[in-house]
């Protein structure tokens, strides 16, 4: 993406339609409200748990590390319970606006496996941290951060192989376009798959996963069900390939490493008064500290993510040379997700991993303006 690229202001009412913008703002406002309330409930819960959670240690016959795992899992379980009503409200709102087809019970209880995976993840994390803390004392945070980066990198690498519900893209023309874009962006051999989400949502999405030999691009089935033109889908393909050609996933791991070290140090310092991370009693407090760190770093993480998405958008424009399709795509995204094209600044700074839809339309316009004189 060229430095100093100026994005002109976009009149959202004229691009997306006045009525739509009003509706999108209303829809988005509800989601932001439940998010805010959910965050308040989350921190209140974790604060109480950090003070009282250690008493659950009496429910354990395991040693310190096993007890720490129990306290960690219980903390997650309580958080899940507390967040449940807010999630259900979101589902209600999304169903009301035809954004999802998922049922309430299915949403609440249909994902036990994922919750189980989260439980196992926190056990592994606590096993690493508590083992190192018991062995190395307060110096655990250096190898601990390294271990987490290694685990994160490993997961990022193997994730494409864990996507069992994807099938290869069958559309020959799109497949050929994908191969062409890869050549133009200087990469090759990235498989393109489709994930069937038709039973759960009407929103459209795509993503790039893996790095090195495991790179993969996945399109949601809602992306190629006729809601978008072939030209628009090609923009999406070029965008996702752009993530790979720009090495965004390894860069993301590098950013994670940069945050992990100070994060682990803060965790070590904060849990010192509970005996340090080697003690099970420190785990409830550690959960609160991690949540605070995550919230504090959210703006930086969102900013990094937005930069990467902007770069991928620009690459997509450079590859497809089709700003009209890009513009149509972003307007279409707004329609399928009822996303506010120009959300409140605080929400954008804190939460948005992508540029706003208005900014993305503006980028397409900026690319068109730049390319016209050159061609002329």
């Amino acid at each position: 993406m060229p430095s100093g690229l100026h994005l002109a202001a976009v009149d959202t009412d004229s691009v997306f339609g006045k009525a739509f913008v009003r509706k999108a703002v209303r829809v988005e406002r509800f989601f932001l409200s439940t998010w805010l309330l959910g965050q308040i409930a989350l921190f209140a819960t974790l604060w109480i748990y950090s003070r009282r959670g250690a008493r659950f240690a009496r429910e354990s016959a395991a040693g310190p590390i096993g007890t720490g795992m129990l306290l960690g899992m219980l903390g997650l379980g309580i958080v899940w319970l507390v967040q449940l009503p807010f999630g259900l409200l979101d589902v209600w709102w999304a169903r009301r606006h035809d954004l999802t087809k998922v049922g309430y019970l299915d949403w609440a209880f249909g994902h036990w496996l994922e919750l189980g995976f989260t439980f196992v993840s926190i056990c592994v994390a606590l096993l690493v941290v508590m083992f190192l803390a018991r062995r190395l004392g307060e110096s655990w945070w250096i190898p601990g951060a390294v271990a987490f980066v290694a685990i994160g990198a490993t997961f990022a690498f193997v994730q494409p192989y864990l996507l069992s519900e994807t099938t290869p893209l069958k559309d020959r023309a799109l497949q050929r376009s994908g191969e062409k874009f890869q050549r133009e962006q200087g990469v090759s051999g990235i498989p393109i798959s489709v994930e069937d989400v038709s039973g759960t949502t009407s929103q459209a999405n795509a993503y790039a996963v893996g790095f090195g030999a495991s790179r993969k691009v996945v399109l949601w089935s809602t992306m190629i069900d006729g809601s978008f033109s072939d030209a628009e889908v090609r923009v999406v393909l070029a965008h996702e390939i752009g993530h790979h050609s720009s090495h965004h996933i390894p860069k993301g791991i590098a950013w994670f490493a940069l945050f992990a070290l100070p994060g682990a140090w803060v965790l070590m310092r904060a849990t010192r008064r509970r005996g340090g991370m080697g003690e099970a009693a420190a785990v409830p407090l550690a959960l609160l500290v991690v949540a605070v760190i995550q919230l504090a770093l959210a703006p930086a993480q969102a900013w990094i993510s937005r930069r990467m998405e902007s770069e991928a958008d620009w690459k997509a424009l450079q590859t497809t040379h089709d700003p009209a399709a890009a513009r149509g795509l972003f307007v279409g995204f707004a329609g399928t997700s009822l996303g506010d094209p120009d959300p409140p600044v605080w929400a954008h700074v804190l939460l948005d991993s992508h540029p706003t839809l208005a900014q993305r339309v503006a980028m397409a316009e900026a690319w068109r303006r730049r390319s016209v004189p050159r061609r002329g």
Partner: protein
Amino acid sequence: MEDETAPLPIRIVVTDDLERSRVTVFFRLLLAIPHLIVVTLYGIAAAAVSIILWLAIVIEGKAPESLQSFVASYLRYSVQVSAYLNLAAQPYPSFGGGDGYPVDLEIVPSPRQSRGRAAFRLVLAIPVLLVAAALGGGSSFGNASWFASQRTDTEWTSVGWGGGGIVVAAAFLSWFASLARGRTPRGLRDLIAYGIAYTAQAVGYLLLVTDRYPTSDPSRVLPYAALPAHPVRLELTDGLERSRLTVFFRLLLAIPHLIWLSLWGVLMLLAVLVAWFAALVTGRVPLGLHRFIAAWVRYSVHVGAFLFIIGGPFPGFVGADGSYPVSVAIDPPQQQRRAVTFFRIWLAIPAVILGSATTGVIWLVGLLGWWAALFTGRMPEGLRNLGAAGLRYSAQANAYVFLLTERYPYAAPAVRDRPHDEQLELELEPPTAGFAGVEPA
């Protein structure tokens, strides 16, 4: 609050001497057909009478004694037929039931019953009917197992069937043993008697003979059943209080343990292979391997106890001896006969059959215990003890399969060992002696 120590209003009396005639054993199912027809007709009549009983109790709070006696006599006859069919008794029962049968019921009906509890009897009875279905002791109760299984969906049916075979599985094994030896093994007989006794309680409760909620506690249902000396013994020191939070998330909390148990299990199986060769050569499993395998068996009990709410606390990950309140003590390695070691996998088949039936019951204990503990913060003692007995059997079966001992697992659903001298008496008991442990009526 009911007095949990009071005698059960429907209790089983066993005076069977374990001796069996091979000929009648061979044709047992065919011989039982006339009784099954009669008991089915009797059951239809008893069900019809129980509707009148229900109306009488709901309206007046009191049951007509003559009608209750009719249903009670049906229960006794059913138990006798069931005991005969499932090889828990030898003599051919008299039609309609008679006194002095070696497996019989003593029933103290409750004419006065709570109207509220009677009104919702069918709903209140669902959990006990599920347990009865899993135990499968009601093959002649017109048929409680069938009833419970059919009322539920496919999943439940499979759970019920998986464990539903526990009495059937025991009878099946007992059939072969009785044919071979002319005598039914005590453990299997007591297991069948337990299933029959529990089902009798459940049906008696359903048909309004009593309003006492059935207990599944083996030490109450079958108070005379004792565990003989065994190198693998249950250690049960856990209380009944449960944290609702850990109960609610029990399955998820157990996931790390289940993963670790599986990974460790792979290594343990390799160790068993090495131990098998070592035991064939030296006649004994090397101490290091024995400890390694024993720790896995202990750990599997800890994890099973935690997962199925039989134990309260979160277990450790190493299966340390004495580290969990529901555990097994495992003796050091002993000399083992090479032939028994060589054919271990074949010899273990009956134990594996019974073990898989037991697993179905343990799952049901976990499911019912989950609901009970979630609402009351306490695991019902009867369910806990039934689950503990199941875990004890599974541990003994695992210990046998994995070469920790050549002593066969003991099938009777007893929980606690008798004091050492009493175990010795059981050991020394002559094989043809009648069972003297029956409590007087």
